[in-house]
């Protein structure tokens, strides 16, 4: 405790560390000091002057009140936050701040939860001495997410510092001087960072508010319900604000270990999808090509009879990796009790040759907070900011603290920190990885890896990276991460084999960036063809997601997925479904593809409407309760499965509550630890032909990741709401004879679509980036695979 000092705040003796600011110590002690610009996660600006306090050191008072946010504590310091002098200073500041504030609280969305309003209740005067004209600031359109009323701005600059320090993109700034100063983008651009919604929370006044929520409720009308984000594998802790059975907005719930105090815009605004017109709220059956509403009893009977009528082995189940642990568990129980082992949640994977040797329960490899401490990070096949916005933020923190970040990807990803890119089309990326292995002087444990290493010609960059990895090994702070795009690669197994060889050879850790909220949980629930509950290895696995479609089943059970968007190869999936005798789709949304291919639609609850558990990337179990009732006849998924199980007279479906289910799972998984080491030697594989065949790379844009997000209108209207296009390298476009903006037809085997050409040097030669899961991509083939482009006719 030698580095601790003692000071006195309002007569109370407090312990503090050297270098801490008075306000941080007071906050810890529960002593309230008013403030606007100070925020524990941002740098100290000390420009609002609201936190002025009186202080003395060694019996000598400071000549003037000091800002508590910018005055470091010292041993023996005495601070008065409520003395006459301090209060006088705070009142004075308050009067100045209110001079130009419009005081339009009755029509302001922030009214009732406004820091300025609260503090002015405590320190403001009843009347204003200011009789001159107030300044008026012209508003700016920051896009579909953030509403502005810049006249209310008090220039705390929290939003500006957020952009510079957290997001890493200076979108907002303070231009002009004195009375002319204003916060804005200066160039009238839309704010487009994927974490930008956090400035709504940061703004202490009503200058920045949520646009989708605007004018819909007052803070005191809302009930707060805790929840967990259903999108990426962070499982951000959320607070849903509910009124009359409707989620009206979403706020972050601070949890330092998971999301700190931030959430991504996807977490914040996807709730809009809950109220979309496309919600499925009634069981429906298709008779002679026409959809009819039916009641639950008949619907469940139809489903049970239909499933009973086919042989167990001919049923396949594709389950969303965003389904809760409970839903995934019951689904696999149902399937396996019917005699089918064909259940998979890895819907965006095509290479399953590694299943037998894969780690038993893969995970991130470190805790989320530990990401910040890494010294060397290698990302393989990941559009990081789109896939995992909050993990990207942790990695940014590591990079700013000096970590070396390297990215092996099929196209250049824009990161907001220094990093090194190794960009190559699919196939060639293997050689890039092999070059790193060669630089590490690895020989490789299998023929394929050896052959690749033989092909590789390591350059200076590879040697430098090898050096960084070796250096990071010494303090155990090196990490190689495999992302969602690597998972979609036709040679994912080879990528894994190379990554494992590099990790072992350089002595750093290997981790997976699970793509969705419950991808890690799927192994525990047993929602994989080769894993039983608790992640137990099944020696005779069922068919995987790809095989279920290439050797079509007679009946399919789809769980909360859109076959035109949520699978690797929508064209293949739709062909397989159209030939099936029975397609039962349990879904929270109606989509054109579901209406075309399903025979029975069962409405299930979406995020916020059911209780359940998600297991995040670091293996943390996070349970949540339903906050609102599902619309119409929709029911929580686990209840639907319980009834279906009982109707089919299967054992083990007698649950009274979700709690009971969770307890059973907890007991089952009590000894299931995560581990990323391969269970067995990787199989002998053929090295793919690394020629210059044009390959499609279809990344899933951030706001196309799942059905809920795709139905959130505001997110779709942001600049990140990508639509289909063919992104080509200038030379590639030149060889093919395409101009920018030209319409081309895309052909992947029998699958076709048309799109516009975008010429960009962020894509390497040999690669065509054509996003997946966006409108227009429903008829295309595998996310990563050979593609042919021709000029569109007409």
């Amino acid at each position: 405790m030698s580095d601790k000092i003692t000071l006195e705040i309002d007569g109370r003796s407090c312990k503090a560390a050297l270098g801490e600011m008075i306000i941080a110590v007071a906050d810890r002690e529960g002593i309230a000091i008013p403030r606007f610009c100070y925020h524990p996660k941002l740098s100290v600006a000390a420009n609002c002057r609201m936190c002025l306090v009186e202080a003395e050191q060694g019996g000598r008072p400071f000549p003037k009140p000091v800002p508590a946010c910018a005055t470091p504590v010292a041993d023996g310091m005495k601070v008065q936050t409520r003395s006459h002098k301090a209060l006088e200073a705070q009142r004075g500041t308050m009067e100045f701040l209110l001079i130009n504030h419009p005081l339009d609280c009755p029509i302001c969305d922030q009214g009732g939860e406004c820091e300025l309003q609260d503090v002015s209740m405590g320190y403001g005067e009843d009347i204003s001495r200011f009789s001159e004209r107030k300044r008026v600031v012209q508003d700016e359109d920051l896009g579909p997410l953030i509403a502005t009323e810049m006249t209310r701005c008090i220039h705390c600059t929290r939003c500006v510092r957020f952009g510079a320090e957290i997001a890493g993109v200076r979108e907002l700034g303070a231009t002009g001087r004195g009375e002319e100063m204003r916060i804005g983008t200066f160039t009238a651009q839309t704010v487009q960072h994927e974490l930008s919604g956090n400035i709504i929370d940061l703004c202490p006044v009503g200058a920045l508010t949520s646009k989708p929520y605007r004018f819909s409720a007052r803070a005191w009308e809302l009930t707060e319900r805790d929840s967990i984000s259903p999108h990426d594998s962070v499982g951000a802790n959320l607070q849903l604000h509910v009124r009359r059975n409707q989620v009206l907005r979403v706020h972050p719930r601070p949890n330092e270990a998971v999301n700190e105090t931030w959430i991504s815009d996807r977490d914040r605004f996807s709730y809009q999808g809950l109220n979309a017109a496309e919600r499925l709220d009634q069981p429906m059956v298709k008779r002679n090509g026409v959809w009819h509403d039916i009641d639950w009893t008949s619907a469940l009977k139809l489903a049970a009879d239909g499933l009973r009528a086919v042989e167990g082995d001919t049923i396949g189940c594709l389950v969303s990796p965003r389904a809760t642990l409970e839903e995934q568990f019951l689904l696999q129980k149902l399937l396996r009790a019917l005699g089918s082992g064909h259940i998979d949640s890895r819907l965006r994977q095509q290479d399953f040759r590694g299943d037998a040797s894969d780690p038993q329960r893969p995970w991130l490899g470190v805790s989320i907070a530990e990401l910040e401490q890494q010294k060397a990070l290698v990302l393989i096949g990941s559009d990081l900011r789109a896939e995992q916005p909050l993990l990207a933020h942790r990695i940014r923190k590591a990079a700013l603290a000096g970590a070396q970040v390297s990215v092996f990807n099929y196209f250049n990803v824009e990161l907001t920190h220094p990093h090194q890119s190794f960009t190559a089309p699919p196939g060639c990326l293997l050689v890039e990885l092999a070059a790193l292995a060669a630089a590490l002087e690895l020989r490789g444990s299998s023929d394929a890896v050896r052959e690749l290493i033989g092909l590789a010609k390591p350059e200076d960059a590879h040697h430098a990276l090898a050096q960084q990895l070796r250096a990071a090994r010494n303090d155990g702070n090196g990490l190689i991460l495999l992302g969602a795009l690597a998972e979609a690669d036709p040679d994912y197994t080879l990528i894994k084999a190379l990554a494992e060889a590099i990790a072992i050879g350089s002595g750093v850790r290997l981790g997976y960036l699970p793509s969705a909220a419950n991808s890690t949980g799927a192994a525990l629930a047993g929602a994989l063809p080769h894993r039983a509950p608790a992640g137990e290895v099944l020696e005779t696995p069922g068919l995987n997601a790809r095989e279920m479609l290439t050797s079509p089943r007679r009946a399919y059970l789809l769980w909360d997925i859109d076959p035109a968007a949520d699978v690797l190869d929508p064209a293949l999936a739709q062909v397989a479904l159209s030939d099936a005798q029975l397609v039962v789709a349990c879904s929270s949304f109606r989509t054109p593809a579901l209406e075309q291919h399903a025979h029975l639609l069962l409405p299930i609850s979406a995020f916020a409407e059911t209780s359940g558990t998600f297991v995040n990337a670091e293996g943390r179990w996070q349970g949540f309760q339903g906050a609102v009732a599902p619309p119409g006849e929709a029911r929580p998924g686990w209840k639907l499965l319980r009834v279906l199980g009982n109707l089919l007279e299967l054992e083990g479906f007698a649950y009274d509550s979700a709690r009971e289910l969770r307890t059973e799972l907890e007991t089952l998984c009590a000894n299931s630890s995560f581990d990323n080491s391969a269970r067995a030697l990787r199989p002998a594989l053929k090295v793919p032909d690394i020629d210059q065949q044009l390959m499609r790379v279809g990344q899933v844009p951030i706001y196309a990741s799942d059905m809920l997000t795709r139905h959130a209108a505001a997110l779709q209207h942001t600049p990140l709401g990508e639509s289909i296009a063919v992104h080509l390298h200038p030379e590639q476009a030149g060889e093919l004879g395409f101009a920018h903006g030209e319409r081309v037809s895309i052909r992947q085997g029998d699958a076709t679509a048309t799109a516009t050409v975008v010429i960009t040097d962020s894509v390497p030669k040999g690669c065509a980036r054509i996003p997946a899961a966006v409108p227009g991509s429903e008829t295309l083939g595998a996310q990563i695979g050979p593609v042919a482009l021709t000029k569109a006719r007409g």
Partner: protein
Amino acid sequence: MSFRTAPLTVARDADKSSLFTDDIRAAIDREIAKYPPEWKQSAVMPTLTLVQDANGGSLTRELMDAVAAYLDMPAMSVYEVASFYGMYDLEPVGRHKVCVCNSISCMLNGSEELIDHVRERYGVAPGETSEDGRFTLKEFECLGACKDAPAVLIDKVYHECLTPAALDKLIDVLD
């Protein structure tokens, strides 16, 4: 980490040799050399001055973006600097700038009289340019010449203890 203690560098691969002219680039490089290499952006003010002078006395959005690209800094930071300081103009200006100091000492010594005089005689209010494009009148914050108030800065030369008649003489010789 604060962006006050660490530069928020935006690395750009863009070809910098296409920005500005050889002479301006050489002049900027001399300014950059005065600071530690990672604090290239410290040269933003002299750079803006050089670029503004070469562009007939004012800056444009494109020029500010080019400065940002050349100094590897966020464009927003350049806009902030350029919009803060009085000596940068973001709108086109006349051939000369007549900047009348209107801070306390000059105001007490008759700077408002100077401004009114220019308004009446030439029909140019602060912020406006004369019809013949000869000069732009600017109301300036403290020029730091309080000892000899009122002070007027014409282009880059200080003129002190001015009367309306003395100012007329100065304006009349502008081309």
